[in-house]
């Protein structure tokens, strides 16, 4: 909250721009509980301007939500001795675990190539592959395809609604198989493909309650966790046997 207030102060202190984005989120925390089945984040805001509405090119809004980035190994299968086995592998240096781009128009129209390169907005730009050769490109494409099929990567043209070039809103669906971490949310205002203003904030996705406790125990005290798992198994096995004997008389 404090950071956001500071950011806002900072934004206000900057030399007055023609158009500025003022934004809000329906929630800045997502709690992964035991019955977590995905979450929907509403991102909304307004365009603040000192001067009258500029003529000519229309205003576009691009919203991105990115999960924490991790290295990913992409493997390819090929037929060896009649069976399909993993043969080639490419290490992608860093790829977001979740990435959604919503915009008022198709991204190619809303954002120029140069601005995409600078701000890394489109899905391929958000992935940082170490190599630039053709093979790496093929593996990166496969990574995007697999994650798009499971809704971990989302391209959402026309998903941002903009009214009177002033009020905008969009909702991003976070899937149920979400990983923990800070999810960076960015909002870009563009005119004629050029970024006029941008805003950045984070959504904290955390396991809470029982999920948090189990995860922490498993990673910090693996031996206790393992023994506890065994104790549960033994108790359940004994319980089943005892109940069954009771039922049979």
């Amino acid at each position, binding site marked *: 909250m404090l950071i956001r207030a500071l950011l806002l102060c900072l934004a206000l202190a900057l030399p007055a721009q023609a158009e500025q984005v003022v934004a809000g989120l329906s929630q800045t925390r997502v709690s*992964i*509980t*035991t*019955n*977590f*089945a*995905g979450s929907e984040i509403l991102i909304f805001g307004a365009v603040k301007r000192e001067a009258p509405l500029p003529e000519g090119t229309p205003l576009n809004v691009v919203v991105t939500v990115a999960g924490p980035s*991790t*290295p*990913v*190994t*992409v*493997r*390819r*299968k*090929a*037929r060896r001795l*009649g*069976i*399909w*086995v*993993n043969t080639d*592998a490419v*290490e*992608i240096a860093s790829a977001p675990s979740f990435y959604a781009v919503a915009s008022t128009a198709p991204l190619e129209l809303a954002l120029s190539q140069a601005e995409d390169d600078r701000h890394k907005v489109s899905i391929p730009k958000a992935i940082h592959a170490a190599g630039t050769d053709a093979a790496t490109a093929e*593996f990166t494409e*496969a*990574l995007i*395809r*697999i*994650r798009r099929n499971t809704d971990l990567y989302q391209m959402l043209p026309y998903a941002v609604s903009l009214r009177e070039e002033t009020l905008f809103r969009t909702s991003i669906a976070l899937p*149920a*198989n*979400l*990983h923990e971490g800070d999810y960076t949310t960015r909002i870009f205002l563009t005119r004629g493909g050029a970024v006029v203003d941008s805003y950045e904030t984070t959504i904290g996705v955390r*396991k809470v309650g*029982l*999920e948090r406790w*189990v*995860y922490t125990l*498993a*990673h910090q005290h*693996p*031996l206790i*966790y*393992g*023994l*506890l*798992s*065994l104790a*549960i*198994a*033994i108790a*359940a*096995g*004994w*319980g*089943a*046997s005892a109940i*069954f004997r009771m039922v049979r008389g």
Partner: protein
Amino acid sequence: MQIYLPIAEVSVNAFLLLGLGGMVGVLSGMFGVGGGFLMTPLLFFIGIPPAVAVATEANQIVASSFSGVLAHLRRKTVDFKMGTVLLVGGLIGAGAGVALFNMLREMGQVDLLVKLCYVLFLGVIGALMFVESLRAIRQTRSGKPVPKRKQRGWIHALPFKMKFRTSGLYLSVIPPLVVGAAVGVLAAIMGVGGGFIMVPAMIYILGMPTKVVVGTSLFQIIFVTAFTTLLHATTNYTVDMGLALLLLIGGVVGAQIGTQIGLKMKAEQLRILLALMVLAVCGKLALDLLLEPAELYSLGTGGH
């Protein structure tokens, strides 16, 4: 009802897991096997990461075999001495199996190894059991007595002999150690208790009487799978307590129902059904390896 699994980091339907546990439990109660060989591929199928499925399944088998061994203890059909010798071999095998599993995981070939193990063992065991039970059915139809098994000479020529009173055997400790170690390796790699390999090996290789085989096998499986669970939990952090709990609740209930169904059927009929089921799982996995997959690429966690 969706449940988010804390270690697997996927959200699955709780009733689906209870149902899967129950279904496999019914089969394991009917046939006297742990059911791991069916459960682990089913878990892969519903989207549980293979490493988590294998480790968690080992934990679930602890529960079902403990429940089973209690029943056998009351009937005094557990050979503790033989069980302990098998166990020593089993622990060595499990340690080697987890090390092998981790090595192959880094090479990206763990899925292949697990699947190949399944196809090979399920195919061989299924085929042998199918042929054997067909023969048994034919013999009971024609009314001929079942021929007595021949004792193999070379097993008895080995040194370090030991008396196993409950089994009524005077045998070298080497064969049970080797059998135990082989099953231990499989338990770690495949996430199975190994009952479907251990039971035939005890009958046909060690020549143990059938009535003590299941109890003794279950006795040593508890310790081997418990050890495997601990190794996976401390080295890979892949045991999912939530997943194990849901599976074992379904499993122990299903096993009781399965036992009741099993009591009403003939032994040969049961064995032939089990053989067919084993062969069906084997066929499905073999097809996956032989046919061109729809998606040639797969993702793994980065780093080493």
